């Protein structure tokens, strides 16, 4: 129950909508990108957990109740985006699946690449089913996040980052070809998730940063983002994993995205000053370092992030990407407890930080 302060308790959906419209909700919304942790809740291996939509739904619902956050998702891992293309996915017992050996090795591989139908891939079908089941159980009370890997970032998984960088510099014709195929695939994947019941689509693009991609390719990446996001019929978020976002924040705003997912390389105070009233910030607890946080450190870090970016709304407290398997239940509970302790509006501890 959210009755700690003067504002009446909101549902998660109302809370998030208030944050997106740059108003102060009852408290700062909390998003923890927990995927494989659902397997731990059910006592299953990670691969077995993702073998049935029912397991994923049950895992997400248990974590929703335990960690009292404001989003659910049916995401397995970005690497699963490769399956429709016939790419290899490697499963682990103690972490999210990873992409296997790149499968685009030659010019001919790229030229002959066809747009696969994501809804014909078993893992994607299971994800859609899980989204639909979550929607049925949660209705409009809790946002369900859908995720796509951007057309601009997908080649990192398809051909490896080194080869992709060289292709961008040396073969603009093949780059264009890849963008066409990947954009069509990305739009189909987003559309299917929205139809299944996803509330919003997170456009995952680790390359949309000046820290990663140089001009003119960065501009090309934003062109792809603007074109693609314009065709996705839902609220949109852009997440750049751990790359700094501040240098490109005006380009992000120009894409029409409602949310920017930020990592620890971003200064929340500077970012908030730039985004206030224009773009909601989602971030930026250090998910890697989190596994060693004490309860005291956890509370301090949560309190600080809320103080820096919470005032005036437009802020969703989150980790800086997918939370690693190695982060303990105790730490996740401490993140949640600190959010519920310090995140109520009006915020009262800004001067202490």
């Amino acid at each position: 129950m959210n009755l700690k302060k003067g504002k009446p308790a909101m549902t998660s959906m109302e809370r998030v909508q208030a944050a997106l419209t740059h108003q102060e909700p009852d408290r700062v919304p909390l998003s923890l990108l927990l995927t494989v942790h659902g397997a731990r809740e059910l006592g299953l291996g990670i691969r077995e957990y993702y073998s049935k939509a029912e397991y994923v739904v049950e895992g997400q619902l248990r974590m929703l109740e335990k960690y009292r956050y404001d989003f659910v998702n049916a995401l397995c891992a970005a690497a699963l985006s490769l399956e429709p293309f016939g790419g290899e996915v490697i499963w682990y017992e103690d972490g999210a699946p990873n992409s296997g050996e790149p499968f685009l090795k030659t010019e001919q591989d790229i030229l002959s690449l066809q747009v696969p139908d994501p809804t014909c891939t078993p893992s994607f079908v299971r994800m859609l089913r899980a989204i639909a089941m979550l929607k049925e159980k949660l209705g409009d009370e809790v946002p369900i996040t859908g995720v796509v890997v951007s057309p601009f970032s997908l080649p990192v998984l398809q051909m490896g980052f080194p080869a992709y960088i060289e292709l961008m510099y040396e073969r603009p014709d093949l780059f264009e070809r890849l963008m066409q195929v990947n954009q069509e695939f990305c739009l189909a994947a987003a559309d299917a998730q929205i139809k299944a019941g996803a509330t919003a689509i997170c456009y995952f693009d680790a390359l949309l940063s000046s820290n990663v991609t140089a001009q003119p390719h960065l501009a090309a990446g934003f062109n792809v983002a603007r074109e693609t996001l314009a065709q996705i019929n839902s609220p949109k978020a852009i997440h750049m994993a751990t790359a700094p976002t501040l240098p490109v924040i005006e380009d992000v705003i120009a894409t029409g995205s409602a949310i920017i997912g930020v990592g620890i390389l971003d200064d929340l105070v500077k970012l908030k000053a730039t985004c206030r009233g224009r773009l909601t910030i989602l971030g930026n607890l250090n998910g890697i370092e989190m596994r060693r946080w004490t309860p005291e450190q956890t509370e301090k870090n949560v309190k600080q992030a809320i103080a820096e970016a919470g005032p005036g709304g437009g802020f969703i407290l989150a980790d800086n990407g997918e939370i690693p398997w190695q982060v303990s239940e105790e730490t996740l509970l401490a993140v949640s407890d600190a959010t519920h302790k310090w995140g109520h509006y009006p915020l009262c501890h800004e001067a202490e930080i």
Partner: protein
Amino acid sequence: MISNSKEVLDFVDRLVRIDRLGAEKIFNAVREQGSMSRTVDQLILPALEVIGNGWEEGTVALAQVYMSSRICEELMTHVPPDDAAEHLGNLPMAIAVLEDYHQLGKIIISACLRASGYSFQDYGRVTPEELAQKIVEDSIEIVLISTLMLRSALLVKEVKDLLAKSGSSARIVVGGAPFRFDPQLWQEVGADAMGANATEAVAAIATCMSRK
């Protein structure tokens, strides 16, 4: 050591603009004035350090770091070796990634090492067991491990334990995103040094060499 001579800055400018011919022209001019080791010390290393610092400061993109490293590597392969290897010592060294197909970091470090005159074994993608076995078989004294995922970074501890059991005293230098985001992680997994970027990795090798 950074030399901000005009030649270095011009070379950096050509590299980050991926101007291979322009970079080669400057490289050849410096090479003609002295030995390969002098070219490495006064042009290649300072330029890669400027570019590495530029990435840390946000003025250079990772894609430019990668392409610059590859260009420097290519330039080094087109000239006959002279005393470059001698001045670096003859240290058995290797590089690897642990159970991960994301190899950008390893390729950048490899290119910088080659451009700096180092020779080393490239073990590619290996398990901790495979890596420890190769290190022992080849009597490796310094191994560089590049990681992208936290899971891979934590596997370094296994490598360390396997090496200890085998009686190997090989030094471990680690790098990659998990170590950048958790500054205590490299010590937790038992590494001997951490390089936040390619330049730091090369410096870490020198530190390890001085401790031998």
